[in-house]
Structure formats: structure tokens, C-alpha cells
């Protein structure tokens, strides 16, 4: 893995912060676990046998590198050069597996016997259940009750893979609540369990660890663009942001390349001002949730508000601290996309390119309508996952 960003203004500092954001705001019950991870993750990741096994699994098992596909018809429509980074072609159908492969290898090195995870859309849950099956570890996944209903195929996949899926019935019964339950489970089982967080959220070192595992996305984009054009840098990189793991991975190796414009798309839900939205940077302010200081949707009293998005993977009231820093510093531009715009973008890609995108990824695609890139601009859209899990939602909303 490339460690060139270690001195970057956008890399995590030694205390676990990205600018003002990050840190490890955890109860004492979790301190030994998180500290064990903090002290070991960098040395484990840099060991040659870890790297060899990680790279081998990424190529032989996940199917990397994923293609950087020139979307010809879409490019003609928008009068620019659109390339799709096909994370939807990863084993299990989304980028999430890049991270779970890395973390399960770390968990094994730390001697852990059991894995706990949270999931929103179910992609991270499936990716976790998959690597647990691969390594023969027990797997427990917390998923909001509402999400279990709207992402039923992924619940069935997790069952098939041998994972135990537990419904989070508190709060809005979505990703935030599943994360609370997974953290409580870890508090109750501190010594033999590793918590595989699925996004660039949580206490340090999680945001940095997950970013490093997902950074393979931008590493490959650079290599693929160099092969095609002799220049690793596109003009734009677009990615959706819930917690922000696919965006962190797609942006990472471009953070210190100012000519590359980074665009993060949040879920506006029914509209930013509708009261039914997950557009965190538009609606939130600094606060602490799930172990880190970040930008957070909350009341004046500091209660975390219930987000809304048609896309379960973006239905989260915060963003990873790296994104809070990219937003505050202006390094990335944040815009939001409504449910309706995402649905139409998903339909458009299906009809024009024969690719059904995940509803999450459809938020990134939807912004192509507003980007107004120049004809020769190279626009990379991170197609973070495939849409099979969303077919019921698409069919109903689009009356197919």
C-alpha cells in the first residue's frame, strides 16, 4: 500500500485528528480494545506477510483491480468523458469488501475469535459475513429493523453465509441504531471480539484504517488513467457519502493533487429543507457521535436527529471525520441529491449502459446532470455498488 500521504495536511495526525475532527471519544469500557488496535494496526498492515495475503485476496478473491470503464453513451449525453470505477464488480457487489478483508486479517493477527459489525444497506454486513465464512470466524451483524425490511435480499445473503443478523429496534431502526447496538455488543464482549466498522467513522484508528483499506480504489484509478492517458489525474472524482468509505477510498490518492476536483454527494432525501434528509454538511454542525468529533445532524440540545434517505447506505446523521475536514477546508465540494434524482440516475445508467447501480452510487451519478464539465474533462464516478439489493425499491418508486 502507498503511504505517501503520511505527511499530508489531509492525513490523520498522531492524536487521531483530521484538523478539528476525529479523536477517540469512547467510554472507558472500549478503551483497551481501541487502544490495542491503535497500537497495532500500522505495524500489522506494514508486515510483508499481511500485505501479501491482503493483496492476494484482493486480486484472487475480490477480483481486483476493478475496471475503469469508459461510459460512452453517458459521456455523449453529458458531453464530457465519463469513467466509471466499477466497485460494483467486486465480490459481494460493493467496495465494502476491500475493508472487511483488511480488518479480518487484522482481527486474526490480534487473536480474535468473533466478529461484530453494523450494516445499513446490508453491503457491509454481507462483506463481513463473507470474510468471516472465509476465515471461519463467528459473525454477528446488527441491522436496523427498517433496513432489514427494505434490504431483504442482503439479510438472506448474510443468513446463507452463516452470520447471525440481529435487528436494532431502537431509534429510527437504521444505520445509527445498528452502530449503537454493535458498540454495546463490543462493550459486553471486550476480549475475544473485533468490531469491523464498515465506514470511515468511529473512534481513531478506525477512520484511518478503513480509509487505508479503501484507498486501493484511488490507487487503481491513478494507475488506470496513467495507462490510458499517461496522466494519473482526472479533472473530477465523484462519490456518494453516507459515512463516506467509498468516497474516502476514491479521493485518498488525489487529496494532495489540487487540480483534481473532489465532489462528495450526500443524500438530500425528500429535499434538504424537507425535514426528511440525510444531507449532513448542509444540516449539521460539529459534535461527537460514535467515537469521533465530526459534523453531525442534531438538535440545539445536542440530540442526534433521525436522518432520512431512500438509500439505506446513506441514511446516517454524520460523516466520517476525514470528510468533515475535507468539507471545512474546502478540499472537497459537498452537494446533495434527492431520492427522486437518484432514482432517475439509476434508471438512466441501467437503460444507457446496462448497469444497475446501487441507490447509494446513483446519488453520485445524479450529479452528472449538474456538473457541466467541459467536453475534454475526465470525470471519474465511483460506482460503489450494484443495485440488485435495491430492485424492490426501484420497481416500486419508478412503477416499473
Amino acid at each position, binding site marked *: 500500500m502507498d503511504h505517501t500521504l503520511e505527511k499530508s495536511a489531509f492525513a490523520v495526525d498522531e492524536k487521531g485528528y483530521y484538523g478539528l475532527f476525529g479523536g477517540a471519544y469512547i467510554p472507558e469500557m472500549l478503551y483497551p480494545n481501541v487502544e490495542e488496535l491503535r497500537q497495532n494496526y500500522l505495524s500489522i498492515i506494514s508486515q510483508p506477510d499481511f500485505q501479501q495475503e491482503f493483496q492476494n485476496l484482493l486480486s484472487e478473491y475480490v477480483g481486483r483491480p476493478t475496471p475503469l470503464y469508459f461510459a460512452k453513451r453517458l459521456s455523449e449525453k453529458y458531453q464530457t468523458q465519463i469513467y466509471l470505477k466499477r466497485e460494483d464488480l467486486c465480490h459481494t457487489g460493493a467496495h465494502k469488501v476491500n475493508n472487511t478483508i483488511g480488518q479480518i486479517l487484522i482481527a486474526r493477527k490480534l487473536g480474535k475469535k468473533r466478529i461484530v459489525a453494523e450494516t445499513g444497506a446490508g453491503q457491509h454486513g454481507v462483506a463481513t459475513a463473507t470474510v468471516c465464512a472465509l476465515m471461519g470466524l463467528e459473525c454477528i451483524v446488527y441491522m436496523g429493523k427498517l433496513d432489514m425490511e427494505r434490504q431483504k435480499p442482503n439479510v438472506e445473503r448474510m443468513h446463507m453465509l452463516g452470520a447471525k443478523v440481529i435487528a436494532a429496534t431502537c431509534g429510527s431502526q437504521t444505520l445509527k441504531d445498528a452502530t*449503537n447496538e454493535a458498540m454495546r455488543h463490543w462493550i459486553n464482549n471486550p476480549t475475544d471480539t473485533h468490531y469491523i466498522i464498515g465506514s470511515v467513522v468511529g473512534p481513531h484508528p478506525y477512520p484511518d484504517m478503513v480509509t487505508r483499506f479503501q484507498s486501493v480504489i484511488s490507487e487503481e484509478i491513478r494507475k488506470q488513467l496513467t495507462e490510458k492517458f499517461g496522466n494519473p489525474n482526472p479533472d473530477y472524482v465523484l462519490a456518494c457519502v453516507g459515512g463516506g468509505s467509498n468516497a474516502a477510498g476514491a479521493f485518498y490518492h488525489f487529496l494532495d493533487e489540487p487540480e483534481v476536483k473532489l465532489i462528495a454527494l450526500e443524500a438530500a432525501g425528500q429535499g434538504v429543507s424537507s425535514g426528511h434528509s440525510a444531507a449532513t454538511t448542509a444540516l449539521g454542525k460539529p459534535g461527537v457521535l460514535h467515537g469521533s468529533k465530526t459534523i453531525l445532524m442534531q438538535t440545539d440540545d445536542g*440530540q442526534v436527529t433521525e436522518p432520512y434517505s431512500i438509500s439505506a447506505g446513506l441514511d446516517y446523521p454524520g460523516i466520517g471525520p476525514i470528510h468533515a475536514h475535507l468539507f471545512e477546508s474546502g478540499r472537497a465540494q459537498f452537494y446533495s441529491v434527492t431520492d427522486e434524482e437518484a432514482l432517475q440516475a439509476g434508471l438512466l445508467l441501467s437503460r444507457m449502459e446496462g448497469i444497475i447501480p446501487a441507490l447509494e452510487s446513483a446519488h453520485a451519478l445524479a450529479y452528472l446532470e449538474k456538473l457541466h464539465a467541459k467536453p475534454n474533462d475526465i470525470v471519474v464516478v465511483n460506482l460503489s455498488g450494484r443495485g440488485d439489493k435495491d430492485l424492490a425499491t426501484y420497481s416500486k418508486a419508478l412503477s416499473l
Partner: protein
Amino acid sequence: MNRITALFTQSNSPILNIYYTAGYPALSDTLPILTYLEKSGVDMVEIGMPYSDPVADGPTIQQSNDIALSNGMSVKLLFEQLQEMRKKVGLPVLLMGYLNPVLQYGIEAFCRKCKEIGVDGVILPDMPMSVYLDEYKAIFDSYGLLNIFLITPQTSIERIRQIDQVSDGFIYMVSSASVTGATSGIREATENYFKRIKEMKLKTPTMIGFGISDKKSFDTASSYANGAIIGSAFVKALQQSSDLEKDIASFVSSIKG
């Protein structure tokens, strides 16, 4: 002297600290419950500031938090309800909660208000020790407000020594690896941990909490520490109560009697 420090200096018998959630069962119950607790002979009280995402709490306290929030409880309203509390109660009062609502209120404004109304200490489980020492301790100190740290069976001896050095009032010993209300009774492994801590002869008094629910567990815990904290079991009693004053008196006498 801070009321918490005074209590530990003066008391020879085990100290009973009761936790309850502000604004629960009804919004206006906060102050009456506090006065009933003092009347019933409790030594110290921990008032929970409800939060939307209480990750260190089990189902009972989560539910009381949810109900209190839907009743309309907030940090601001809690301070209004407690504004005159020192005309009615003399026992040490702590506020327990999570960091975000306190951050949004403003750390300094929060500490100033605590001093103004006579709150003696604060327990914020998700506030890291390093952040407290670097950013907040000076503010807490200037308003005479104590910050209570937690230790667990997994906390290293080195870290316990460090926590002991920076602690005032008492150290909150979490009895087992769990969220609140998850266990009942005290197991042998837990007693070994209590023994281990007792033998460390810390300078700061200790109070044991999590899993303390009745006289038996209170007495066991108190034989290793200065006293114990009861939360979920008391919240459950409130939940079932039709006469708060009477039921609180009988709950407390069932522990201390």
C-alpha cells in the same frame, strides 16, 4: 469543600448512590424524585441527562432516555428544574450523560451553571481522559466541579494509577464488561477484580456500579469499595411506580435497611 469530597471524608458506612433519568417517568418528576431520595436516606444522587444515543447503557436506561426526550427534557430545561434544588436538598448531586449535549450547551457555560445551582460532579463516559486533561480540566477546576472517571476489569494497572492521580471525589468502578443493567449479581471473577483494586490502595475513594441491583449485590460491592451505585434497578422501580414517594422510600430501605 465539595459535597462529594465531604461525604467521603465524613462517612463511615457504605455510600449508596442512586441514578435516575431526568424527566422520567414524567417531565416534572426530576426535582420531586431528588427530594424523595434525600428523605429516604440515600447518600448521593446521579441525575441522568437523557441522550439520543447512549452507547454505554442497556435497554432499561435507553428506554428511560427515549421517554424523557419525548417528554421534552433537555440540558437547558434540566437546569431550570434544578435551579432551586439547594433550597430543598443537601446531598451531593452529580450529572451523568454523554458529551455531545454538554458540548452543544458549551463546556464553560455548563460548568458555570453547575456551580450556580450546586451540582457537585459530572460523569461523561465518552469524554476521553486525554481530552479532559488537555482541554477541560482547568475550566472544571475553576468552577469547583469534579469529573468522575470510570475504570473497568480491563483497565490496565498503569492506567488505573494514572486515573487515580487525576481523580477527585471518587472513581467509578464498572463492575463487569457490560453496558448498564446487563448483569445481575456478582460473580467470582468480578470479586477478584474488586479485590485487586482494593489491594491497590488508591488515594481516591471508589464506588462500584453496573449490575448492582439489590441489598445482596450492594453489600458485596460495599465490602470492597466505599459504596455502590444503583441505576437500572431503580429506573425499573420508577417505571412500575404509582406513588413515587412511597415506592422510592421502600426501594431505598430494601437496600440500606
